[in-house]
């Protein structure tokens, strides 16, 4: 699992490359916690290079969402692949988190 955190125009992009499963989930949580700690508030998780996500990965997403909201910010997801979209649908998580098509769409309304 590899992560990159980059400041964009009005938000911060976190890209996650690899498999977001029980091994990757704690790493994602740590990455997002660090980003929030260093002052980033509006986060977009770019899942374009996330090949696989399971329930533990989704659980980590919820954990990150909570952390961002509690810091007064938000966490959105974008650029999801087929498999990720399927698990989002399967668990109805897409009712909580909108999967935005492009990273730059995520905070268009904000």
């Amino acid at each position: 699992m590899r992560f990159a955190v980059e400041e964009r125009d009005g938000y911060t992009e976190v890209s996650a490359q690899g498999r977001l499963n029980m091994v990757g989930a704690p790493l994602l949580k740590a990455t997002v916690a660090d980003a929030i700690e260093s002052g980033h508030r509006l986060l977009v998780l770019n899942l374009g290079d996330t090949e696989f996500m399971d329930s533990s990965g989704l659980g980590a997403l919820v954990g990150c969402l909570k952390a961002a909201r509690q810091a007064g910010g938000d966490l959105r997801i974008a650029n999801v692949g087929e498999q990720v979209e399927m698990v989002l649908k399967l668990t109805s998580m897409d009712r909580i988190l909108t999967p935005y098509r492009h990273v730059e769409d995520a905070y268009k309304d904000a």
Partner: protein
Amino acid sequence: MTRLIIRILAALSVIAGLNYVVWRWTASLNWDAWWIAIPLVLAETYSFIDVTLFSLTVWRMSQREDPPQAPPGLNVDVFITTYNEEPELVLATARAALAIHYPHRTWVLDDGARPEMREAVERLGAGYLSRGAEWVDKPRHAKAGNLNNALHETTGEFILILDADQVPYPEILDRTLGYFNDRKVAFVQTPQYFGNVPDDDPLGSQAPLFYGPIQQGKDGWNAAFFCGSNAVLRREALMQLGLTNYVADTEARVRRALAVGQRVVRRARRRPEARDPKVASLLSHVESAIGEGSRRLVAGDSIGDATYRVQANVDAAVRTLVAEDLAGVSIDVAALREELGMDSPFDEATEELDEAVERLAARDLSPLGALESVRAVLDALSVERLHEAQPIMPLSTISVTEDMSTSMRLHASGWRSIYHHEILAVGLAPEDLPSMLTQRTRWAQGTVQVMLRESPLTMRGLSWGQRLMYFNTMWSYLSGFAAVVYFAGPLAYLLAGVLPVNAISVDFFARFFPFMVVNQLMFWVAAQGAKTWRGQQYNLALFPTWIKACTTAAANVWFGRPLGFAVTPKARQEGGRPLRLLWPQAIVAALLVIACVAGIVRWVLGLNQGLGTLVNIAWTVFDFALLSVLIGAAKYRGYDPARESAFQTTKEKK
């Protein structure tokens, strides 16, 4: 072959039972004594349904041969849950867990957060987990919460759960992990067996009927129960459950909050605190924010987006209000300072002001805090599950028996389960009557809670076989009410000569005896040599426990009363007078003795001479035989290994 015999006996039991119960309802009721006739026929119908459900259970008894071989390389965690058990006991289990052959990590989940426990556990080389800061002031959910906390802290793909006293055999994982080759299997449950129980099992601790034909039968229906310990679970299944539950709960809560939100805000605006024009304007902002949230949800926005909008709008309004307030204050301060001739560097003041706005606008200090109902609505309008320590709770928290509720939800979402009938861990049973009663009360309360909160009969996703398997266990805890009627029957006849049936005749015996005989025969064959008599005795003898469990659980679910939940003590409780716990049974026993004497006296006086008296005295004697189990239980002074050693060695050889 055995299976065929069991099926024949099961079918005969139901047919004979139906024959008896139909006759009882249609042709035998003594309407002159309806006050006892109706309860008795209801109790008998209850028992008939119980027998039918048991027949259905054993109809599909699974006979699993050797388990599939455990594939190498699985990632396994072993969890040992403890709350207040003696460190020595926990450490003995931890040592045995570390010695399990299959590669794994061992964790002690100490809900008592004892530093000396941490030290001892880490010295052994096992991991130590206890709850973190996020649990402060949040519901702890007992053992379910302890396990949920650990699931968030660890990464094992499979989890073996052990109660603090359940010492595992080294082969426990090798014998169970193979079942997970089937990717739909969510958990494998093995029996709970107790090593500190003498051969005559005075407290009825072993449950050979449950960890035997009942679980095997449920297994046949793909409805084996997860029993909280000695089971291996698949993390993915639990996490999926936690997620689905999180989404459903969050969506329901947010929709409810949006539905009532505007009304709550409007009501708040009529309160005296809202007369202040600033508060009034803030509330109108909140109202329109909630309105926008509703509109967005209707328009198809996700819960996350809609709630973020609401919170962002409200936060902006709050910040404006606080900033205005503080600006006013700072002008006053500046004027004051000028009067006093102090210089006030302007930059510094605005910076301080910004910081103060941020701080005062935060959730806890916001002016909205004063309007609690509005605050509550806004808290509900969130995706963070603010009222819980963790948004995702894999193990169900709706009942004190989290295990049964969790397995029911797993089955409802399409997962499979396995009951592997082989003793792979040895535990410690309560060694005294009060602890035993506490434990039984909790099981019964938990089961009834689940029944009332999430009835298996209406839960979507369960097959009818699964529904009936869960329902059967819940149904069996209603036996306390039937027991009272069964005691009242002979009392009514022997004391007052009132017979609830028309006549004790050939008709009665011809229908009653076949039912009774076939049914007992089925129990005997299904039990396959296990001793089930203790279980039958306790089923009747603990009637006050069952009744209390039903009433307290109902009061808890319907009226939110506390259950008086207690952890089963693992160490023997000293003192305690059994009679204070067993007074209802003592009264019943006394009444039955009086009734027998009265029946004999009436006979001598020439009243009720005949079958009625004989049958009722026989019935009383049977009641005594069942109740007598409590005498041994009350006198039991704990397990004495020396006395049992001869028995133990023969068993170990097997």
